[in-house]
Each structure stands twice: as C-alpha cells, then as structure tokens.
C-alpha cells in the first residue's frame, strides 16, 4: 500500500513490525527514499475508531475513520486525511499518459488489450515482486495506446508498462 497526505502528490510507504501485540514503525519511505522517523508504537483501543499512539514516549489518542480509500485522522487537535493507493496507481503528477512500474518485478497477468477503453482505477495488469502480487491500475479514464511487455517478462522499476491516451 502507498500513502499520500491530503492533496499532496508525495507517495509514502511504511513498514510496521509486530511487537508484543503492538505495531512498531520500522521505516518510512518518501517517494522511494527512506526518511528519519520517530519512535512510534501503536496499539488498539477498546473503541475501534481509536488508536493509542506513542510517539517518542508521548502517549496520544488518534481518532481514525476510514472513508472510501482515505483515513481521516484526528491527532493533536488537527484533522488529517491520508489516502491509500494500490501500488502502481500513480499520482496525478507522474501519470500524464504513461504508467511506469513502481518496483522491479515480473508481469504475471495482463488484463486489457491495446485499443481498449479503461476507467480510472481499473486493473490493467498484475505484477509480482517480493512474492507479492500488485495490481497496476489505470491513473485515469482513457484508451490503452500501447502495452510494452508480455506475460512472464521481468521489468525494472520505472519501466513504462502501459500508455493511456485520452
């Protein structure tokens, strides 16, 4: 899962480790690069819309509600919206036309043909990386102009996978 905050185009990924029933933040990547993080552990509150969050030994209560693909978070008296993205559904900024591989991997399924019209968010292909499958979704409504690879082919991160025209 990739994350973005509010209207920003920056993409984040997070790794959490299970530790005595709590989740501990191990790393955060911002547009693919690891960034400095605080000590964050998170555990469940009895009320399922709340999380107990410990940041650098400060205990806080976060109220969280999931609405569609976004998490609305109330933390420290402010509301933030964090959006979840399937990996590959690239942000508006980088998606004007071509869709690039978000990671190195193998194409295991192609779900559309050239010339086909697709909707925003429609699954286009399935990639496998690190033994996990990731759906590549269309960033916008449009027509599939070209598909650059075949099933079973290995691709590098950043390779153009599909071009979507208007």
């Amino acid at each position, binding site marked *: *899962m990739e*994350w973005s*905050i509010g209207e920003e185009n*920056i993409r*984040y990924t*997070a790794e*959490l480790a299970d530790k005595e029933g709590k*989740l501990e*933040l191990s790393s*955060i990547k*911002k547009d693919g690069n690891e*960034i*400095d*993080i*605080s000590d*964050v552990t*998170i555990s*469940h*509150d*009895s*009320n*399922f*819309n*709340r*999380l107990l*969050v410990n*940041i650098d030994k400060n205990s806080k209560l*976060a*109220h*969280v*509600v*999931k*609405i569609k693909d976004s*998490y*609305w*978070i*109330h*933390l*420290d*008296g*402010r*509301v*933030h919206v*964090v959006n*979840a993205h399937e990996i590959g559904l690239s942000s508006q900024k980088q998606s004007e036309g071509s869709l690039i591989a978000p990671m190195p991997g193998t194409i295991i399924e192609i779900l559309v043909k050239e010339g086909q019209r697709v909707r925003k968010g429609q699954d286009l292909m399935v990639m496998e990386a690190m033994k996990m499958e990731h759906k590549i979704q269309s960033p916008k409504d449009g027509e599939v102009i070209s598909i650059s690879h075949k099933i079973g082919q290995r691709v590098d991160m950043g390779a153009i996978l599909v071009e979507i025209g208007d």
Partner: protein
Amino acid sequence: MYPDWMDDASNPFSSVLVANRGEIAVRILNSARELGLKGISIYSDSDANSLHVEISEEAIHLPGKQLSETYLNIDAIINAAKISGAEAIHPGYGFLSERSDFAQAVVDSGLIWIGPSPNSIEIMGDKISARNKMIDSGVPIIPGEEIFVEKNEDYIGPLAAAAARVGYPLLLKASAGGGGKGMRAVYEPKNLKSQYEAASREASTAFGDGTVYVERLLTKARHIEIQILCDEKGNSVHLNERDCSLQRRHQKVIEETPSPALSNEIRKLMGESALKAANSVNYIGAGTVEFLLSSKGQFFFLEMNTRLQVEHPITELITGIDIVQKQFEIAAGFELNLKQQDIGINGHSIEARIYAENPSNGFLPATGILSKWKFPTGPGIRLDSGFREGDEITIDFDPMLAKLIVHASNRETALRKLDTALSDFIILGVVTNLGFLRDIIKQDSFSEGQITTDYLDKAPESLFIPPSADPSHLIAIASAMERMGINGQLSGQSNGEITDYYSGHIGDPFKTLSKIFP
C-alpha cells in the same frame, strides 16, 4: 394546558411551532421544552431524520424540493400550525424571520407571532426607511449618499450615477438582506455591473427580493451590535454588545462579548442609540441593532435585525438571560422584569462558527457524512448544533455545522478555553474550518483585540494553510489502522461486548447489575 408561569399572561399559549430547521430550531425547541411548551417543528423531505425533528413533540412534513415549497412557504407553514394545533409561531433566523408578510399572515390567522410587529419589520427591513427613521431619531448613520436602485431594464445608468455620487469603494447591499448574502464590495467602477448583478441574483435567491442599494464602504471598521429586549408596555433594555468584527466576505466567523474595543462610555452611548432605534419603530421582542465602529471611535447605524441572532448565545452567557425565554415571555404579554442597571457583564464569552468548508481551498463548501462527531463538553462550553454523528452534510442548506461557545472569567482564559474546545472537537468525514479557527485566534491581531471587518479578506495566504504534521506519524497511523482495523472490529464482536456509543466503554453498567440481581 398552559404551563404554570403563563398564569398571569395576557396572551397565554401552550405550544409553539418553530418555522425553521437546523441548530436554531433545536435551540428554540429546547427552550420551549424547558418552559413546558409543546414544541412543534416543520421539515422538508431531506430533513425527515434531522435532529430538530427528533427533539420536537410533533413534526409536520412540508413536501417539495424547493425552499419556496417548504421553509419559505407561508401558506404551508400556517397550515402546519393549524393541523398541529400550534398557538404560536417562532420564526428563528433566516428564512421567513424578517418577512413582514409572514408576521402579518401569522397574526391574521389568530396565532401568536413571536417577534416584533409586521410594521416594525417592514420599516427596519427596508434599508431606506430604516435610515430615514434613524435620521429622525438622532441615531448616527453611515456617511455618504444613499441611492435606491430599482431593478428594471434600464438599471445601469441610474446605478452608475448613484455609485459615482456615493464614491468608491462602495458597498452594494440587498435591501432585504442580512448575513452577508446579496452584499458586494466594489472598489473600481469597472466591476460595478458584474458585482451588482451578482448581489441582485444572490438577494433574489436568498430573500425573494433582488433590490440592491449603494452605500459608502467604511474600511478599518469594527462590527459591533447591541442586543435589545422590548416589551409591549414600552419597557426596554439592552444586553450589551457583541463584537462580530471577524468576518469573511461579510459572513461572521467569530463573535465575542464584551468587545475588546469598547469603552464603558461608548458602550453606554451605543446602548442608548440602539434603544432609540428600537423605540423609533415601537419595537417589541428581542432584536439587534448593528453598528460600525470607526477607527476613530465614531459609530454608525448599519441595520436592525428584527429577530433572534445566530450569535445570541454569547450574550446569554455573560448576562445569564435566556433570550428565547424572554421572547416567549414578551409574546405572552409579560412585562420585562429587567432594569438596565441590573444587567451586568459576567466574564467573557466567545462563539466560533464551525462551517463545513475548506479554508485552504478558497472556503469551498464541503459535503460528506459526519462519520465521527464528538464534541467538547464541560463547564463554560456550550455547543449549539442541528447535527449528530452519522448525519449527511449536503449542499442543500447553509454550511454551518455548529456554534461552539465558551464562557470564562476573562478574555485570555476564554480564548484558551476556545482553543482547547476546538482541538477536542472531533469531526471526521467532512472537511471543516476547526483548524483554521484555532489558527485565527492565535494571531497577534486577534489576541490583542485589533480585528477589523476586512481582516480576513486582507490576511496573508499563509493564514489559510494549516500547519503540517510529521508525515511519518500520520502514515504510521493509517498503516496501522489498515492492518488492525478489521481485527479490532472482530475482537470487539467475538467476545459479545458492545462498545457504548457515547462513552466508548464496553458494556452498560446497568446490564452488568442486572446479571447480578436478576
């Protein structure tokens, strides 16, 4: 059955229909219930499940999609009063509250109208006749020439001539207006036509009257208004001022009392002027006289609102007087049992209006479902709202979600209490101005009490951008919720415990007791 306190009333009544919706309907219905009056509400299709319907003893459905078929439909509302046996009608604010034809229709139907006479509404509702009354009564009015612009085919010529005589910058105002609707500032002649048309269009939509007039725009002024109460016997008092200088496009955002800008001397003069204004139209009931206070300490009559005001709660908190209760008492014919010298100022009160809007995106109205709605409570904190958790916010009505009102012994404490209450107000699912309100009250201009009505319109862009949080904290929380969310719900369900909706605690204590004592 009249409530006991109606015993000596000359016009007793036992039930009241509230011709309104949302928070003000809720607020009035609550007062009615406390006073032993039967509260009756009206509702449109989209309001069938709203809070004001829930808390009323009887609710009458007004079918139709347009406001003109429901909350602006005089015949249907009078009919609803007849069907439900209502003996009195309270109009709230907005909608028909300042329509003299509505007041007249209520009176003609033999019902008690909770408000001033149709004649008072009519004189004060027309800006021109109101100004003329003020001139006659010696109440200062805004300098500059006042020109009445008739809306007809050939309006551009007279409009331009009037504007040139008044001078720029000027203000176009809906003659029937209020609440910032149908009001436009014009700084240059080239914008006159487009702004006039916008103002007129807004006025037609909001008030059913597209007439607009021209007035000199006073800059660097404060908006100070005086709450007044008048009875049928000619007794009248004022309940001090409200400072509503913090506005965005003439829409009030934060109001407070007492005003940080008013000396006792000006307060006294302004209070006397407000009562002169009210008495000039033989006013009866609760009303508000609005003034502009110039940077030099001169004040000018702006308009009189012949109804309950949105921001009335701050006055209630510092005076200890329930204004809606007073409206009921005055309508029942009771004499005001208040003397001016007995009305004090106890501490400081501030109201912040919570809107469903996005301050960082040009204040665009926001919609959605109030998936989480947990409001602050405690001594000195009052919340007036027409919404509950789970309610949907649509674009059909005003985007005001709630009024958060605090009361403390002094301004500094009240501001801190407001900031705490704003940060404890949890609204998820609809974008609000909660964070923006916190940012405003922390501005030096606000804490020093230096706000003028143009403050927000001239504020730097940075004020509208929320301070950013550490992204890693937010991503960690979202990521954790994604992983735990489902498990959390399952564990809650698997042991058969149900989390209490309000307290967040598992189980109802009385349920536990019943297990021990069958």
